[in-house]
């Protein structure tokens, strides 16, 4: 345990965030967009867990607080996906497609 450095973990979540951002910016399929958002969300959750596992004594989310927040965030992500999937269904019924580029009627 002691040989592990936090840098690799933070690097992992940074990579996840980058993948997520790339997905958000390039995908047009709503489901893939939702998945990208979830990946970004999980990058944040992982961050909380690293900092809980490597207590510095000065960080606010050291120890249990960090783990608790991670649990809350998982719940939040689930809720968000539920809402997102509801929007997907509504969009499909309205436009007959789940391409987000089609949902541009707010522009007018």
């Amino acid at each position: 345990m002691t040989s592990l450095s936090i840098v690799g973990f933070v690097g992992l979540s940074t990579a996840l965030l980058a993948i997520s951002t790339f997905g958000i910016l390039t995908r047009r399929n709503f489901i893939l967009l939702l998945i990208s958002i979830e990946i970004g969300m999980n990058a944040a959750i992982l961050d909380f867990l690293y900092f809980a596992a490597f207590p510095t004594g000065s960080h606010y989310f050291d120890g249990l607080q960090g783990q608790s927040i991670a649990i809350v965030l998982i719940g939040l992500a689930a809720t968000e996906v539920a809402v997102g999937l509801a929007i997907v269904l509504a969009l499909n019924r309205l436009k007959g497609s789940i391409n987000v580029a089609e949902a541009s009627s707010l522009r007018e």
Partner: protein
Amino acid sequence: MNFWVSLDQWAFLVPLLPALAFVIIGALGERLSKLEHGGWLAVLFSAGSMVLGFLIAIGEMLGPGTYVDVRYTWFSIPPSSTGFRDGFSLVMGTLVDPISALMLIVVTLVGFVVMLYSIGYMHRDTGLPRYYAILSLFLTAMLGVVLADNLLMFFLFWELVGVCSYFLIGFYYAKPSAASAAKEAFIVTRVGDVLFLAGIFIYFAMYASADPSWAASGFLFTKGNAAFLPLGQGVNPTLLTIAGIFLLAGAAGKSAQFPLDAWLPDAMEGPTTVSALIHAATMVAAGVYLLVIGSLFLGFTSTDQLAIVAVGGFTTIWAASMACVHTDIKRVIAYSTVSQLGYMVLAVGAGFAMVGLFHLYTHAMFKALLFLAAGSVIHAVTTQDLFKMGGLRKKMRYTAFAFLAGAFALSGIPPFGGFWSKDDILSSVYSQLGTHPEYWPFYLMALATVFLTAYYIFRVYFLAFEGPSSREPGLSEHAHESPWVMRVPMLVLAGMAIVAGLLVFIPPFATLFNPTLTSPAFPVALPLNVPPSYPLVDIELSALSVALAVGGILVAWWLWGNGRLASMPRSAPARWMRETLLQRYYVKAAYDWIGGVGVYSIARASDFVDRFVIDGTVRGFERSFAGISQRMRKIQTGVVSDYAAYVITGLIAVFVIVLFVAPWLVSRLGGG
């Protein structure tokens, strides 16, 4: 005696009664068709006002020289070191003193008879509730001017009088000439009123520092039986002169004195009754009343006096000369009014305020009479052109008698009212010529005007009433005498025109011409000259002015007598002069030129600045914003990924600013 003094407490009812009539007729007029659309109500309320006014005046005659000031403080401002040292209050009050008692008699009597006359004269018109309501409001305002006990209240009612005049001149508002005459009257008097207001400010500033209690008590005219102010003592004489000139400007606007005189003849577009009440007897006399008040309570310097004398003296002959050629019966009488007001201004300027007031009083009677008689003629023949009339004496005996009485009074034939007052003015001014030789030209103008006056008014009489029949066929055949509601007022005023001058020889009545102010600084200790006293020189002067008047009548008879028309040969050298007079000395043309060329080019320059500089700036901003917006709207694609990209870009920008730019700036600028 106690009864009479307690009566003065109720003086506020005199203006309040017509105000009630205004409210009732204004609200219910259309439903009062049985009462002549409120006309009889107006008569009733003005009669009540007249009875009370006469009772107050009688009380003033019995208790001579009392100054009863009943006042109600509207609001007051406490003393302050930066503003008025002793505070400031706005007061509404009634001041019953000899001169306001005299004015009460004049205004309420003429007001009542004109209201009565209107019942007959206006019967065929529409819009009667408006007419009677505004005429009642005018009476209120005029009585407010007369009874005001302080300068601010005086100005308030003074403006109200002007508004009523505007409404009544424009009574036939559908007629373009009437609408424009109303505007002209309002705007020209406004020029005077603005200057008057400036004068009031100067008086306030001057006297409020000389005597701080003046502002605290509400700019009152009097304190007990004395003028409130130290009359020019302790103030800068230059400032006092300027304030006096401004006061003269206000009076000249209201009383149609040169050079603000052109509106009064045009004001004849209103009903004749309005001309009789407002533009002959009362409102136009308010300017003279203002000068009287100014000389009694505010103080004039000798420069002011010379200016007043000059304006008054010049106006007499200026207006009288134009009266000699015009053919509209009402316009001739209107020019005559301007000319007679000039006499009053002349007298006040020479220091004889009471003599001016004397002529105001007799003039109100005989000039209202002349207008009512002219109205009766117009009512009968439905034209105002003298050259079409003629031979009306046989058909309208009462009217002819009334007009003749007014004409004799105006010409100054003894013992008619006008003789005593006009003669009094001439001899009073003459008595000042020794110490003020600069009055000479204006005295001579006034003297020459006596001849012109007699000439033009008898020209009207001969043209309208004498001769076998009318020059336009059929006019005199269909003419008939007016109903009793029009005859009675004419007879009342004819009686007054005959005896008004004699009344001042009755001692109690003469006390109304004695202001009995105990102020030690009474401007110039001149004799009051009312009633006129006759040392030898005055009798010679009277003989001269009567001879001039008789001469005028004879010339009028020679030219126009027995209904003949005197036509000037085409080659006569005086022809250009007649044209000048008919064109009113081209003053109207000058007005039009000033309006058309002067004001219009200023307006066009302003229009240019407004449209191209101000609007251009605004429109430039608008256009550049619109252009930017047109370009900006392209980024609104509606695609959610694009918005996500903007959000992420913004987020990265915030990080860059917070983490790199801000610390760099802080280190550069050395902040905390």
